[in-house]
């Protein structure tokens, strides 16, 4: 049995090179499609990862603990009681330092020259830098120091609209958690520029304890932000969930829930990309189909001789499928190799295209992309082409299954 399949393999291999140009052209088509697919997938994955990482890094974190319903309707009274204690136990459970407590409020902010409504976030200056890049993006002055100092850090656009710079004072007027009036006067110590239009235009941060005092929050807060590596999200989530009280009043929200738009934008992009890939793969499969059909048809006479000598149809079929399998495998290997080299090159040197800058600004990604070099970008495209190629060789086999020796011998 083994010797037979060895013969089949040898025959198949030799048959392939009887028309070396045709075979090479067919392989070239596969390698072209493979390289393109690997490059596109690598670029996509690289881009998605950057979109997610950069979006989460600014302010959102990997996941957050919030009171049930706060995400949909962010009312001040939907808060987390004893938030600091909860944050500590989350830190212990996950062995992660990057856990920060925040409170959010809204106030009319006046600078003397201007009055603008702004979002106020009360942050813990010690842990905030571990979950958000904003503390590192202070362009003028410094970030907040001390959890109960009376000072403010303002988004760059907001600062410009309020016409304030570090050292100036701002008056805040809003309402506290219990509905009382929340008012304070505090100096601006820093101005941050996150690159995120909304945050820069409407956010202002103050130390958490000061925030609690002004907005009558007691020991409450609105969100506990958890950072860490996305690759370890599952174990972090398990640790954090274990720290939550059992009554279900608090929920742990993943970034997919916090930024559903981001998740779906990625899905939408991926879906439309697969349509393109499918068209490409089908075209390559047609090319292979034609090659295999030709190579079978032109051998009708030869197959007739083989059949007359007693070779069975099954064995001929095996030979043909071996031929296309070898063809496809060469395409797969060379394709992955070529694709791998291309994405490796761009990983090192970066890839950009015209218009990328404006897109980058909108989606929070740098204007130079680095494709992801990984199995999930290397394998799916070439594998799909491989399978499509094998499927394409089924038609020629089906076509010759009823070949009769005499008739076949009569064709020239």
């Amino acid at each position, binding site marked *: 049995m083994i010797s037979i399949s060895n013969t089949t393999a040898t025959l198949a291999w030799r048959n392939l090179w009887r*028309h070396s*140009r*045709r075979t090479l*052209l*067919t392989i*070239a*088509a596969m390698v*072209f499609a493979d390289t*393109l697919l690997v490059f596109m997938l690598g670029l996509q994955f690289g881009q998605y990862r950057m979109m997610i990482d950069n979006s989460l890094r600014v302010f959102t974190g990997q996941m957050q603990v919030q009171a049930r319903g706060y995400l949909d*309707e*962010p*009312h001040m009274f939907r808060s987390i009681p004893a938030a600091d204690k909860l944050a500590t136990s989350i830190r212990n459970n996950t062995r992660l330092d990057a856990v920060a407590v925040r409170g959010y409020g*809204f106030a*009319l902010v006046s600078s*003397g*020259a*201007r*009055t*603008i*409504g702004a979002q106020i976030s009360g942050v813990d200056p010690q842990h905030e830098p571990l979950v958000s890049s904003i503390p590192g993006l202070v362009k003028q002055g410094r970030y907040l120091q001390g959890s109960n100092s009376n000072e403010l850090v303002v988004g760059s656009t907001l600062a*410009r*609209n309020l016409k304030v710079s570090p050292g100036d004072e701002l008056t805040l007027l*809003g309402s506290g958690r219990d509905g009382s009036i929340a008012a304070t006067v505090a100096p601006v110590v820093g101005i941050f520029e996150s690159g995120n239009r909304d945050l820069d235009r*409407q956010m202002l941060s103050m130390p958490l304890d000061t925030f609690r005092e002004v907005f009558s929050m007691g020991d409450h807060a609105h969100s506990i932000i958890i950072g860490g590596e996305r690759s370890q999200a599952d174990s972090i989530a398990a640790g954090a969930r274990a720290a939550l009280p059992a009554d279900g009043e608090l929920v742990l929200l993943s970034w997919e829930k916090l930024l*559903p*738009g*981001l*998740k*779906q*934008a*990625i*899905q*939408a992009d991926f*879906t*439309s990309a697969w*349509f*393109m890939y499918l*068209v*490409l793969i*089908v*075209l*390559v499969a*047609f*090319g292979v*189909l*034609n*090659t295999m*059909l*030709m190579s079978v*048809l*032109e051998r009708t006479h030869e197959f007739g001789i083989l059949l007359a000598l007693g070779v069975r149809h099954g064995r001929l079929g095996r030979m043909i499928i071996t031929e296309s399998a070898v063809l496809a495998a060469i395409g797969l290997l060379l394709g992955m190799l070529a694709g791998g080299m291309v994405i490796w090159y761009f990983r090192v040197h970066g890839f950009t*295209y*015209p*218009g*990328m*800058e*404006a*897109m980058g600004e*909108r*989606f929070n990604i740098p204007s130079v992309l680095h494709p992801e070099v990984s199995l999930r970008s290397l394998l799916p495209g070439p594998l799909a082409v491989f399978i499509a190629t094998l499927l394409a060789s089924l038609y020629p086999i089906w076509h010759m299954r009823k070949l009769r020796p005499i008739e076949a011998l009569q064709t020239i």
Partner: protein
Amino acid sequence: MKTPFSMLVTVAWRNLWRNHRRSLIMLAAIAIGLWGMIWMTALMRGMVDQMIDDAISTLSGHIQIHAPGYLDDPSVEHTIAAVADNPELDKLLHSPEVTAWSQRIRVPAVIRSERDVYGITLVGIDPQRERGLSFIADSVVSGHYLESVNDQHVLLGRKLVEQLETKLGRRIVILSQDPDNNIAERGFRIGGIYDTDLQATETTYVFAGIETVRRMLKMGSGVSEISLLGHDYRNVDGLAAEVRAVAGTAETSTWLQLDPYMASMLDVMDGFIIVWFCIIFLALSFGLINTLLMAVFERTREIGLIQALGMPPGNILLMVLVESSIMLLIGLLAGNLLSWLTLLPIRDGIDISAVAQGLEWAGMSSILLPAVKTSDVLLANGIVLVLGVLASLFPAWRASRKVPVEAITRIWQ
């Protein structure tokens, strides 16, 4: 000896159908390739058109006029003269080049209900003029649209109403700043609720009559912006230059300047379509060259024979080119037909709301209307035909170069 062209066509046509399976597979590949080009382009164009439409109708218009400094600092201080006070501009706005225009007061403000407070943009509009210019008039889902420049009601977005926990007919308070830096405060009754594809629009804009807002803010006769529509969103620079000439010191900007992201989307899209066409064509060309090469090789003897009989090599080259042209033309015909048939059932748009939230993030709406542009279809057909004939030059050249004696005596290849 000169072979008539019609004979070449006949021979090429018959050659094509000597191996009908091979030709049919190639035809199918060409048709599917073209279909992929046209379909994909129609969907992507549709998507971008929609994004631009939404962007333009979300208060942008094709061209806007502002006071210098307003874009950087959109406050009540930066105003320009109303159209009525600028006769030259007034004349231009009423010329046939401008299809719609309006003026607005647009200032940052704070809205307060019994339950909550949010930062918004208060827009004082001329309700009649906004019709056909922006989305507002067509988006009111409950209550009614504003009636006049003096209307005492406000229009709120559906999501903002939800967030404020208020409803139609209730009162809300709007606070903003007057030109003297004093807080201007006024109660309004919610007269209507509007609904748009983009949630961000619903939570940002609150509309009221322009004269009502002017009184509330104790403003003079100025306005924050003048917005107008021309005939073609791609071609606004000419009109912008005319507007700029009569707008005086005010800043005139086109939507392309105001929204560089959308503008770059247009360029990226044009570039992408060319790249996509070329990729598809390359994938096709391998098969095309291969098929033609096969067709030429298996006819080596025959080609040698007709050469020996006196057919000049140029004619053989032409014959193969005619063969591939016929194949390409039939394939293109089938591809165009296939595209038309598959685009027909979705010409009224496909609902893609399953992924709509993500699209919203990118500034799109949930109904995708495919946009078939004649230029794209022509380009796709042109690329396949021209590059296809070019690609078949190689097999054709191979065929014409055979030496008759060798070709006839050779049995294999």
